[in-house]
């Protein structure tokens, strides 16, 4: 009998594993995907992030997508965040923003709007855990917006930035906007026994071969295992959580890499498979007491699914027109963000909520870029000397910047997860069927925010402004499916991410979040997990589960 079994090893599972094993508890982490090592994380455009490496192949392990207004379900990879030890944090860019205090009270601030609901705790209650996550993982940066208060500075100064960072600051100042240093889970100096960043030209979507980026694997699980009290088992697929006669979770059943079924017994069960898969696991865990899925008496498991809504603006700067700006300096970091547009002025959208604008330098990605350049604006394919000329001009004569924002995905009745009636995964279990409806706020806010990004590039003297996508549903963030709240009729989990109906079951990834925030959620997921870990440890200490 283990003290704790944790299902999933990403941003939710990592803090639990570290904290609970540090406090003397016996912890088992079960991860569906493989365990990679640093040397496996190659910066190879052709092979470094292909299907099956971080996210399952659609042919082997599909999700199903039904878009509102269409009849035909399609197989998709949407809803997979990262299937490997470390989960999605293994391939994240590591943008570690804090949410704004009003993200925790969206309904309080904006009134009823679709599925928006307040969190069962405030920013102030999470704040010490934001600090804990920033120091445990290792976040570099400086300062931040005044209306996001902090009780402790970041542990590391910002990474060195490209000379253009100053131009971003100056242009924003002229526009009356206040830039701040983008907080990154990237070591700007050796930290946590891991080296400083090597300033490669890859980052997000690839693994980090140096260990400088603070994935759950590098910064949390490694130390958890070093306590001697945490075992991480990779390549095991949990099929079901087991429930005893008393209505408590008793452990789980998994299929190992050799195809054998094994049972694990534990005093406490923590689920952290990311929002779509955590909901699926609960829905699969039916029993006499829970005929609609574990902890699902409310019928809300799988509901309030939220991804993020993304928008992007790009701009090109030519060396000949910006001779003083060292455009071709290979430093990959622009490192600037704006929170000025986190709330929208009246008239943009029925919901006056925006997001953080993150300014960055587009990675060279020579293969992908060349493939794009080979198709002329007219649609004609380029080859021969004209193609060579285009390639050399693009890479040698200018630089592309982007401004990206992740806005709130509005929770709504038509976006949710259920078990698919037909499609199965490779273990024969019903796959997750995702129903998706994108509220028009995504487009309205996205268009405005994208134009704000273009305005900054224009103020910087960009040679070419390139409007990008607006309000697209992102694939790398998922939230909401096991909503946390104080009322068991309208939530699955309480403020400690404990299932209302199952006192020794916790769901600790993005599933708990009533709203998705206008920024990447990873730091918030980590902070919440540290908070829940403290709570679980305290209850063990009080003798609750022995």
């Amino acid at each position, binding site marked *: 009998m283990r003290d704790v079994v944790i299902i999933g090893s990403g941003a939710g599972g990592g803090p639990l594993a570290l904290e609970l094993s540090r406090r003397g508890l016996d912890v088992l982490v079960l991860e569906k995907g493989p365990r990679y090592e640093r040397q496996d994380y*190659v*910066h190879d455009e*052709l*092979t470094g992030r292909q299907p099956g490496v971080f996210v399952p192949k659609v042919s082997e392990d599909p999700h199903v997508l039904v878009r509102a207004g269409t009849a035909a379900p399609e197989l998709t990879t949407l809803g997979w965040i990262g299937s490997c030890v470390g989960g999605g944090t293994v391939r994240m860019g590591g943008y570690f923003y804090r949410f704004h205090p009003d993200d925790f009270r969206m309904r309080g601030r904006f009134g009823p709007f679709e599925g928006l609901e307040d969190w069962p705790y405030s920013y102030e209650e999470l704040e010490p855990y934001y600090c804990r996550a920033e120091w445990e993982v290792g976040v570099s940066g400086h300062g931040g917006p005044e209306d996001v208060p902090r009780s402790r500075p970041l542990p590391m100064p910002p990474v060195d930035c490209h000379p253009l960072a100053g131009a971003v600051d100056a242009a924003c100042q002229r526009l009356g906007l206040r830039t701040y240093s983008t907080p990154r889970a990237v070591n700007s100096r050796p930290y946590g026994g891991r080296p400083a960043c090597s300033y490669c030209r890859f980052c997000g979507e690839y693994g980090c071969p140096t260990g400088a980026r603070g994935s759950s694997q590098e910064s949390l699980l490694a130390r958890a295992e070093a306590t001697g009290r945490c075992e991480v088992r990779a390549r095991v697929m949990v099929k079901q959580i087991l429930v005893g006669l008393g209505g408590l979770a008793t452990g789980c059943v998994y299929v190992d890499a050799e195809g054998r079924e094994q049972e694990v017994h534990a005093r406490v069960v923590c689920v952290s498979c990311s929002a779509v898969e955590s909901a699926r696991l609960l829905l699969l865990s039916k029993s006499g007491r829970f005929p609609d899925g574990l902890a699902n008496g409310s019928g809300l498991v799988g509901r309030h699914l939220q991804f993020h809504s993304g928008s992007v603006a790009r701009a090109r700067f030519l060396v000949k027109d910006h001779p003083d700006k060292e455009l071709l300096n290979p430093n990959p970091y622009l490192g600037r963000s704006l929170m000025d547009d986190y709330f929208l002025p009246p008239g943009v959208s029925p919901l006056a909520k925006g997001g953080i604008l993150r300014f960055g330098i587009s990675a060279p990605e020579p293969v992908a870029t060349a493939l794009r350049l080979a198709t002329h604006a007219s649609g004609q*394919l380029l*080859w*021969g000397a004209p193609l*060579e000329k285009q390639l*050399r001009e693009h*890479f040698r004569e200018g630089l592309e910047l982007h401004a990206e924002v992740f806005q709130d995905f509005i929770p709504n009745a038509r976006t949710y997860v259920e078990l698919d009636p037909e499609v199965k995964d490779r273990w024969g279990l019903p796959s997750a069927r995702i129903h998706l409806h994108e509220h028009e706020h995504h487009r309205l806010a996205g268009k405005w925010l994208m134009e704000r990004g273009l305005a900054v590039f224009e103020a910087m003297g960009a040679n070419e402004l390139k409007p990008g996508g607006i309000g697209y549903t992102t694939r790398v963030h998922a939230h909401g499916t096991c909503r946390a709240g104080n009322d068991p009729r309208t939530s699955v989990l309480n403020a400690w991410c404990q299932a209302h109906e199952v006192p020794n079951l916790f769901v600790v990834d993005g599933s708990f979040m009533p709203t998705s925030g206008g920024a990447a959620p990873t730091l918030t997921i980590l902070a919440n997990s540290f908070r829940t870990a403290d709570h679980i440890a305290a209850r063990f200490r009080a003798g609750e589960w022995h």
Partner: protein
Amino acid sequence: MRDDAAPLALSEERVRTFAAAADRILPGQHGPGAAEAHVVGCLPTLLELPVFAVLRPHFESALDLLQSMARELHQQDFARCSASQRDALLLRLQGIPHPAARRALGALVKATLMGYLGDPVHGGNRAGLGWKSLGLWIERHGGAR
């Protein structure tokens, strides 16, 4: 997962045709071209890539079309045609008003670029000449440039 019905390797004839076509797609007018960068060396990796599996039929169509046009018009293999003859044949392929021809040429250009700019460990982009022509260097295991 590999489709077992498709042969693992390309025929020698198609490989030669690819090398000869790549030599005109990136002729090396102002720096190393596809030939000097040994683009064709990347083929074994390309043929294993899931993303290339979708392109492969169109890629092979392009090679076969170029070869058959060369034999018809010049009574010899595409690979033996002169540079200007090969350019004319590529233009001819580009001029065919059919979506399949456009996809075929597109796949051929894509394969050339993947072989020119993919990591040298895969056999193309010899000595990083493709990257160097663009002022780039990419460390396989992290590192700066």
